[in-house]
């Protein structure tokens, strides 16, 4: 579980996070949504330790990050997996080498053990016969799956995803969403997903946090997002004509 209390982050005079409070539960797909510039990416990077907040507390499994020793911080980073927006796969490495990389760098496993683990996770994300291909030789959807495989290969306790289905067709996007949700439930991981995609919100949003101007303006689940009275959230979620019609139909009881 991750608990965030009164988080502030500024860049020079620009205050991006203004006293943010949130809780992300274990074994659930926690979604961060919000308009561009609302602070989602900065928030995610604070959770990952890539940005140091100006003030506030981030607790991982009940212990504040500020109180972690250097070794504990290093240990924590081993427990984190990240799926980047563009995949962030290493161009010069094959699919197998990319997935094996965290094991090679962070564990003392033998090459036989590493190979077996890589096969296991590639199989889990439904990637077959791609081991020796370079990232440039596979599709965008496959690259995302390699990225997920790399993120979970070290059995993390925390999985972070930055817009995991951006640039993918709706069907592949849905496959990726469902894969992340399955992995979250299967391995009891605390998953935090930063997304713009409303399909993801309605499909896998077990705990949703809506950010507005660097603060949490709404919290809830995919089931109660329909009933919200928060006008800005409604405008954001039902921005497309299709979703507006769906909402109208729901309100009319159709």
């Amino acid at each position, binding site marked *: 579980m991750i608990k965030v209390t009164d988080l502030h982050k500024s860049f020079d005079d620009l205050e991006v996070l203004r006293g943010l409070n949130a809780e992300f539960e274990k074994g659930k797909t926690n979604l961060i949504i919000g308009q561009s510039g609302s602070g989602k990416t900065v928030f995610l*990077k604070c959770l*990952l*330790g*890539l940005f140091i907040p100006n003030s506030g507390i981030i607790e991982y499994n009940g212990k504040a990050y500020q109180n972690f020793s250097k070794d504990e911080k*290093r240990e924590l*980073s*081993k427990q*984190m997996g*990240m799926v*980047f*927006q*563009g995949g*962030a*796969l*290493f*161009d010069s490495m094959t699919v197998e080498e990319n997935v094996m*990389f*965290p094991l*090679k*760098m*962070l564990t003392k496993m033998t090459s036989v053990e590493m190979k077996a683990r890589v096969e296991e996770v590639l199989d889990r994300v439904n990637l077959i016969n791609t081991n020796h291909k370079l990232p440039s030789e596979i599709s965008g959807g496959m690259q995302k799956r390699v990225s997920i495989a790399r993120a979970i290969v070290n059995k993390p306790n925390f999985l*972070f995803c930055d817009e995991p289905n951006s640039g993918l067709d709706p069907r592949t996007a849905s496959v990726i969403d469902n894969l992340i949700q399955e992995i979250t439930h299967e391995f009891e991981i605390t998953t935090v997903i930063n997304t713009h995609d409303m399909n993801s919100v309605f499909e896998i949003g077990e705990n949703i946090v809506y950010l507005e101007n660097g603060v949490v303006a709404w919290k809830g689940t995919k089931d109660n997002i329909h009933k919200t009275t928060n006008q800005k959230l409604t405008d954001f979620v039902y921005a497309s004509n299709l979703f507006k019609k769906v909402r109208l139909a729901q309100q009319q009881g159709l």
Partner: protein
Amino acid sequence: MLLNYIKSVGQYFIMIYDTFKRMTKTSELKRLILQELDDLIINSLGIVVFISFFIGAVISIQTALNFSNPFVPKSLIGFASRQSIILEFAPTFVSIIMAGKVGSFITSSIGTMRVSEQIDALEVMGINSLNYLVFPKIVAMCFFPFVIAISMFVGILGAYIAGVYGGFLNSDEFFEGLKEDFIPFQVFYAFLKSFIFAMILATVPSFHGYYMKGGSLEVGHAATTSFVWTSVIIIFMNYFITQLLLS
């Protein structure tokens, strides 16, 4: 603007300090160093040999054509070629050529990793990305003086071939000039500055790539800026080292 420059200089030294912290796993580091040796040193040999040979030849011909006085000994062609190549051409100008070849390669490869979030991916895994990316380049560039030694040899060979086979002087006169007033300290000076330039070549382009912001267009911009700054620093350091050691 001045404050930005001062800030960048500070950031550069912090980068170098951070490069030596939290070392990458030895087995991986070995692989990375061998890879960088191939990319930065071995792959540069072709262009260095080609340029050195022809510049050496041109120095020999230019010297011969500019000293047509019968009282000036022909061995001066060998002497002038040796001095120009060992003191300036090989260490300084080859380094500036390398700022274009190796420097842009370093900046664009690290910059692309920054843009595509590969550096963030390393950091999230708890790996010191500076050590992983910059340290192997520094180690590989320690072999740069060998490139300069090859450049010196090939440059003098070019001068010999152009001078002797061009009919400007005979072989004995060339070798006589080559040995005339030879000061071994000057070779030490040339290799010392080659080593300092190598460290500049490894770190300044890395700095421009690592801290770049923006997208793919900015990668190209960063590579150009890196070449300009690397060249400027090399030329300034050349003056500084020469003043310090030879004057």
